[in-house]
């Protein structure tokens, strides 16, 4: 008998990568648990001032 598959995902890390995975999966019909050690999401990118090569504001 095939095992029943669970439609939820655990994502460890709420930086730019974890958030993108979470958004894509939630928008595709899966329940997402996003685990983050810090008190807010954003990770390393939130600490950057501008990003190359467009010099866009990182926030």
């Amino acid at each position: 008998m095939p095992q029943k598959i669970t439609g939820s995902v655990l994502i460890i890390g709420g930086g730019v990568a974890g958030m993108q995975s979470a958004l894509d999966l939630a928008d595709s019909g899966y329940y997402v648990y996003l685990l983050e050690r810090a008190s807010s999401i954003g990770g390393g990118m939130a600490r950057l001032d501008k990003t190359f090569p467009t010099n866009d504001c990182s926030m």
Partner: protein
Amino acid sequence: MDKCIACGTCAEKCPRKVDDRFNEGLIKRKAIYVDYAQAVPLKYAIDKDNCIFFQKGKCRACEKFCPTHAINFEDTEKRISLKIGAVILASGFTPYDPSPYGPYHYRKIPNVVTGIEFERILSATGPYQGNLLRPSDHKEPGKIAWVQCVGSRDTHLCDHGYCSAVCCMYAIKQAVVAKEHAGKDLDCAIFYMDMRTHGKDFERYFERAKKKDGVRFIRSRIPTIESLEGSDDLVIPYVNESGEVVEERFDMAVLSTGLEMSRDGLKLAGSLNIDLTEGRFCKAETFTPVRTSREGIFACGTFQGPKDIPQSVIDASAAAAETGALLSSARNSLTTKKKAPEQREKTGKRPRIGVFVCHCGLNIGGVVDVPAVRDYAATLPFVEYSTDNLFTCSTDTQEVIAQVIKEKNLNRIVVAACTPKTHESLFQETMVNAGLNKYLFEMTNIRNQDSWVHRDNPEEATEKAKDLVRMAVAKVGLTSPLEETEVDINQRALVIGGGVSGMAAAKNLSEQGYRVSLVERASSLGGNALNLYRTWQGENIQEKLADLINSVSTDPNIDIHPDSEIVAVDGFVGNFRSTIHTGKKERVIEHGVIVVATGALELEPDEYLYGKDSRVVTHLELDARFMKDDPSLKDINTAVFIQCVGSREPQRPYCSRVCCTHAIESALHLKELNPEMKVYILYRDIRTYGEREYLYTKARLAGVVFIQYSVDQKPAVSANGDGLRVEVFDQSLGQSVETRADLVVLASAIVPPGNEKLAQLLKVPLNEDGFYMEAHAKLGPSDFPTEGVFLCGMAHYPKPIDESIAQALAASSRAVTLMAREKIQVSGTVAYVNPSLCSGCQVCIAICPYSAPSIVEEGPFAGKAEINPVLCKGCGLCVTSCRSGALNLRGFEEGQILAMIDEL
């Protein structure tokens, strides 16, 4: 946490000051804190290690002053058990800590800072509010040095043999931004080994920094940074271009620190039993770039290796695609569909307007007298309620807005804040949740268009804010609710291009439960990969490729159209109709989304005797000989690789990204075939980014000789009776060297195959180099600005197989997020025709870029124009072009615009 309204009283009252880790300890924060004003969730947290109550059992000041009783000292760690179908590891990186790195005296000399510290110094939310100051005396520096490869490409002072892949670009960016802050007189010098600007549009940025911004680039590994006696300045000794050791004084130095796996990440990998690489990142194979060594566990971002933001975002979507394929039978089993509350009908009712004026922290409030604007708004006609907020966009304010709408029975909302480009949809969602039509809304920008540009004239800025609010109120009073048309999304995808990218995208879409039409111009699948021998990780490409081709060819969900070309694309997101030519046969396919995977080509060189002497070949030609096991390769005495053939030159100012690694991989294979063979690689900068650096090290150990040349003094290849002769000016020796060669291999540029025609059919943009241009360089690398069209592989930019497949999976994931909605709403802001005024001149048809207007063929209005609301993007071109005044744009009616002008 639900009670905290982020008022900040707790932090104000907290007596304990500690280093602000978010700002790298450059300033202090309290023991109860939020990291930054836009933090999500915006809730204060107690730093237990520093809280006086937790350490000494007394204080509780925050609890005493908190107006909402949100402080809970009894909160403890809880163990939660979750039932999940898959795991994605994205725990990121830690910046390398250079404290143990003796010679640079980090933490001993205060004006030696790390890359991330300098990032905080430049930031407006940073320790010096964006003023460029050095830490020791808070003076503006006049000379700054960047020292590259600190904690990267170094096995002596740390065990990091890899390249961190992002530091060259962040150093250049920091130098350019520092010059923007401090003015042109600031002297910025970057000391580097190889300048690695291998990403899309990075090389242009590098050239601009060098030529236009005057950033100095000095190729020299810095041995030590010393403090200058009697001052806070520093001295850096280095070897200059003439080979002399010189010493230069700087006001501060930035160590371009690399990336490493965090201790937590290592622990996580250990407890999950995941294989790691030599550099202690998560291991993955080329054809399955986001799978870990354990089934059902995927990885993305810098957990997987040093990489930049776009690559992290691509890999993140790729991990979502792989997860989606694994769990597709359980899709929608645990999620709930969002149900909007019923809309309260508001047509014909007297306007009751609510105005919300935002401080945007200090962005607006620091210039404009926001309370005065709020009070002024309350005096305007039909305004029933007006208030001001520190951040109107914060989560708790949304709840307040929804509540006020109900309590005050408001039916129109004005938000005076930042730009609607980023925030309009948020406020509209709040309105929908409160039962209002989302078009009964007006946003006016008192930040970008007022406080930011009139910083020096606060009084006039306040008057301007009042004007803007008055106009918005006048407009919103005349707004009526608009309807959005809903259309079904066709559940089939069209993938254009049958190389590894196209095939990987098609396969994943099929695994996620969608049908795919795969169109390939050639007669068979495979693309460029058919000509490649080995990956940089040593995998046999032909074996893996054959597996991929086989799985795509036998997939019942994938229809393959070889020898075919797209000749027309009609329709719109969710409902495309594309015409395909296969020979003389024409076929129309209906589909909901498009994935562009058209790839790129190897440039045919026109230099170094290519095409004139058969001993001069390109990388792909050499790979073909490797695959055939050509016995003559063993007899070669001397092989010379020439890098950057056609790349990084004025006519093609980009780096082709893959050639350095490819050359080194091929050089190593030649050495395997004949260890006695002399192999030279003539290069400008070796760009073996990330863990590819190990291959570079391996090649040097294997005896491959690397000679650096300058683009002004390119190598010369000539032929004589017994062989080829290669002459090159060696930059590090400072003299010309020459060798006889039996084989010259050219690292020919990767060029777009002529994307103009397809780009026009798809209505998507190309960049200056002819590659497709993505929606956003950082956050939308696999999306197009045109909805429903996605991008992957070398159509986006030259890239190796692992990155192509990752982006193919990402494009698939992005496409699935759209198709999974099944229905799509079309904006209510569309043009409409008053047929009694229309003269049928057809100017609107000629001018519309989206083919929305057409002529009614039958009935009372035959010969008049009509607009298909599904195609209309609301740009207003037809409205302004209509000489009869028959066209109007919903939400921007003539009466509304005139009312705004009247108020001015």
